[in-house]
């Protein structure tokens, strides 16, 4: 048999192996692969997950025995040091020589290290291979401060990894802005602010001259004369194609580095080919996996006498893991007389979006997304498939205003040939085929069947959309079952519990589930049981998440917080004094919360019942700060005192908070009532907000102030109090019955088909004829309300659940505190 030798078992080399096995070449050739690294090919793109604990073998692109099974001879840990083109053989570092008929170079690249004085000192690293990460992790315990040279894609990723490992981290960039190749000035500025808020120090316009330190790094000196103290340095200033072997064999090298090949992946030597990050084709090095994979495919085809050509590739990229979204696609920075740009910038929330469109407003050329990048996949498709733009292209980045869906282009509009997974080159058609023919009706099955989504993973949300759309178009239901123990959706379980009057988890598991349950189904079912029956949750304490189990939020050190309810934020001086006294007596850290009440932190689990006993004696109740349930209804002072107030917002807020207190829901619920449009209660950032008008009250729903802020939408205006409560009953009950677990109202609404209009139809026009039912169910649930802490304090049996140890009254000696501004804090 003839022989192919492949040098390099990286991502591209592996793709070559995979395609080789699937081609007819395997009958003609033996394949011998050399890898310099000790590991078989692994997923370099997700190298950072190795930093955060993923095992090396989980990153392997195939287990070691895969090569054997497919008759590929893989020699890891064996570097090739010489190519002899005369005798057609290669020489390994171990001094062995191997003959080839065809030689494929897939040597990838190494980190580019600029010439800086003192590079050989301890504590200086690059970020490219598994063993680099091993070295860095070994060094981190000796370091407090880290510096990263390079503010590009890879540098930021490395910076986030060491930052999350607890080091104080600085990024040093030579250019005047971050990610100079992907972002424009304004986008880079926003990214910079966001990263600074994450505690990353950003130094721009800095060029490093020298590494200072005796044997290990102590500081960096810059050409402008300034210094930066650091114990660890990662250099991530770009990549350098590994062309050294090709060069010494006399193959042609690009003046800026990289093995020169034509678009068929051929070098000038008819027996030698090169693919991946080590080559220059079309005048550039292609530093992303998708184009490298494409090259492997082109070469396999050509070796079988095909006529494939590598024609260049989409270099859209999305940054992973950095704590904010950053993406650029298509022609990200064009600006000339033939283009127009649409820019949306919101400095307060760190969002910048730019679209470049043709002058006639017909086509999208590219753009940049910082802060929010949900639209990335779709926009990339619009560019790549040259899809005509809708009338208001700005809707893509602003969301449609007043209409139903976003800009009117969705997965349904994509042509079948649209490439969804560019890493594996899988089209929409391929995916639909797998769903239809192979019954790949979940995302993991699609991944298995087509390999889509197995590379960088960026297309996974789109796979989900295509699947959902396909199933819907076939009149099939999209079932999201909750975990391996229950083959039901949340909604199905809701009905099962209700119809069969099931009151406990154990009963449900026995009749409808299997195994012992898990951390997913237990709290979910606990929440359903509570929403439906409103029984005392501590009775089934071991199916609750820790916060619900101990009726308090767990914190650092395993201690808990105490938050008494203060409806509407109104509190008497006596009650305030009592809070102060209790806090003092038990030495609890005291803070005014963002929800108009007081949080007492740092109680041991065994202290909770006594603390609550004293608070309850003074007229307090549980504030449910621990539950997926109603938290607070914020109020403004309103017409009683305020000169602008239209109505008494405080009284109404108290009434509403007392009405819904203890109500369990898929996620937490917050409300607000303001006395006029000035909105001092910030009601529109809540799940429901009520704002006084001249004629009554406006009711807003589905706002959110958390991770993805969203102003609430107006559900109905100028309502009487009675009508507000009626609509709220219906709205909340409908949400409780239909939302997926851990979905806040704002996200629930954005996924609700028909959107706000449909919600209005259900709540106001009662289009489903369930209005009465929703109201009765709400009345029933609310009528079972009991303050959980009052029940616990009264019952010696329940109080026993709060012991630290069940065999002794000794205290946990491991809990330690330090003092800060005259109060205690958990010791780190």
């Amino acid at each position: 048999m003839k022989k192919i030798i492949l040098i390099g078992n990286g991502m591209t080399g592996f793709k070559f192996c995979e395609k080789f096995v699937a081609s007819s070449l395997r009958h003609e050739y033996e394949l011998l692969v050399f890898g310099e690294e000790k590991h078989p090919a692994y997923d370099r793109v997700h190298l950072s997950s190795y930093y955060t604990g993923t095992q090396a073998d989980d990153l392997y692109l195939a287990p070691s025995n895969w090569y054997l099974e497919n008759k590929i001879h893989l020699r890891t840990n064996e570097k090739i040091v010489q190519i002899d083109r005369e005798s057609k053989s290669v020489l390994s570092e171990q001094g062995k020589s191997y003959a080839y008929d065809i030689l494929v170079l897939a040597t990838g690249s190494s980190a580019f290290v600029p010439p800086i004085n003192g590079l050989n000192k301890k504590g200086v690293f690059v970020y490219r291979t598994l063993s680099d990460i091993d070295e860095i992790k070994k060094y981190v315990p000796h370091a407090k401060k880290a510096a990263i040279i390079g503010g590009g894609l890879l540098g930021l990723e490395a910076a986030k990894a060491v930052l999350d490992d607890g080091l104080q981290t600085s990024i040093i960039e030579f250019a005047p802005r971050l990610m100079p190749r992907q972002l424009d000035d304004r986008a880079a500025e926003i990214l910079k602010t966001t990263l600074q808020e994450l505690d990353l120090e950003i130094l721009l316009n800095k060029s490093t001259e020298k590494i200072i330190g005796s044997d290990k790094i102590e500081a960096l000196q810059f050409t402008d004369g300034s210094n930066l103290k650091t114990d660890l340095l990662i250099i991530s200033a770009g990549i350098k194609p590994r062309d050294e072997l090709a060069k010494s064999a006399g193959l042609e090298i690009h003046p800026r580095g990289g093995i020169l090949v034509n678009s068929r992946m051929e070098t000038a030597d008819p027996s030698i080919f090169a693919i991946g990050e080590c080559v220059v084709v079309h005048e550039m090095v292609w530093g992303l996996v998708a184009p490298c994979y494409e090259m492997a495919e082109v070469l396999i085809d050509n070796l079988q006498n095909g006529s494939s050509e590598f024609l260049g590739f989409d270099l859209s990229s999305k940054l992973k893991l950095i704590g904010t979204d950053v993406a650029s696609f298509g022609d990200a920075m064009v600006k000339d007389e033939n283009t127009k740009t649409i820019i949306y910038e919101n400095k307060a929330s760190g969002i910048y979006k730019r679209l470049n469109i043709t002058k006639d407003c017909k086509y999208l050329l590219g753009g940049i997304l910082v802060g929010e990048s949900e639209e990335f996949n779709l926009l990339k498709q619009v560019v790549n498939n040259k899809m005509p733009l809708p009338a208001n292209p700005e809707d893509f980045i602003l969301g449609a205003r007043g209409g139903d869906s976003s800009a009117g282009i969705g997965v349904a509009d994509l042509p079948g040939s649209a490439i969804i997974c560019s890493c594996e080159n899988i089209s929409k058609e391929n995916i639909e085929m797998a769903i239809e023919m192979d019954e790949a009706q979940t995302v993991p099955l699609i991944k298995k069947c087509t390999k889509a989504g197995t590379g960088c993973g960026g297309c996974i949300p789109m796979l989900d959309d295509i699947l959902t759309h396909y199933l819907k178009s076939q009149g099939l239901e999209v079932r999201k079952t909750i975990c391996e123990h229950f083959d039901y959706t949340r909604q199905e379980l809701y009905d099962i519990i209700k119809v069969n009057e099931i009151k406990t988890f154990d009963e449900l598991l026995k009749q409808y589930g299997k195994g012992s349950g898990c951390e997913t189904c237990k709290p979910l079912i606990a929440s359903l049981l509570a929403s439906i029956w409103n029984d005392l949750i501590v009775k089934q304490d071991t199916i609750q998440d820790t916060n619900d189990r101990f009726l308090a939020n767990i914190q650092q050190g395993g201690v808990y917080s105490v938050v008494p309810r203060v409806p509407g934020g109104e509190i008497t001086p006596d009650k305030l004094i009592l809070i102060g006294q209790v806090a003092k007596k038990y030495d609890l850290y005291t803070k005014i919360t963002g929800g108009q009440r007081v949080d007492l932190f740092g109680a041991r689990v065994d202290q909770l019942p006594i603390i609550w006993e004293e608070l309850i004696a003074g007229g307090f109740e549980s504030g449910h700060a621990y539950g997926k349930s109603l938290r607070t209804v914020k109020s403004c002072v309103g017409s009683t005192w305020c000169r602008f107030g239209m109505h008494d917002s405080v009284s109404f807020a108290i009434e509403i908070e007392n009405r819904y207190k203890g109500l369990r829901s898929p996620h937490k619920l917050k409300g607000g009532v303001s006395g006029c449009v000035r909105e001092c209660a910030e009601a529109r950032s809540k799940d429901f907000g009520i704002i006084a008008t001249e004629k009554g009250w406006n009711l807003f729903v589905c706002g959110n102030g958390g991770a993805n802020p969203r102003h609430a939408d107006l559900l109905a205006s100028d309502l009487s109090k009675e009508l507000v409560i009626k609509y709220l009953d219906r709205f909340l009950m409908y949400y409780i019955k239909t939302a997926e677990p851990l979905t806040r109202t704002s996200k629930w609404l954005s996924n609700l088909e028909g959107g706000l209009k449909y919600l209005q139809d259900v709540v106001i026009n009662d289009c489903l004829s369930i209005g009465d039912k929703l109201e009765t169910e709400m009345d029933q649930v609310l009528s079972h309300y009991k303050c959980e802490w009052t029940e616990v304090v009264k019952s010696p049996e329940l109080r026993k659940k709060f012991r630290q140890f069940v065999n002794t009254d000794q205290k946990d000696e491991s809990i330690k505190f330090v003092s800060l501004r005259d109060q205690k804090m958990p010791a780190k």
Partner: protein
Amino acid sequence: MKTEEYQWIEAAPVEEFPSNGGAAVLIKGEQIAIFHFSNENRWFATQNKCPHKAEMVIARGLTGDSDGHPKVVCPLHKRSFSLENGKCFSDKEYQLKTYPVKVENGMVYIGFE
């Protein structure tokens, strides 16, 4: 189980432990988490300290199984651990020490080497 190799120390009576859940005991200054899977009448014991942030909280985690293997999930950052061998499912560096458990005449005992 080779019972004779262990020194068995009394933890607490069976009824002190919640069903299908865990509780902590203090034995010779050591905090131990004991779990009762009452649905299949099995007992497990591990160290109470979570190896992730060294917090004494494992006993307060949710219990359950994955593919039939019993596990506990740390309440603080949700690392999950096998109760059979103490290995962390997601992060193989982390390991809980496990202890043998036996129940006799309504009393739970922990075995020390």
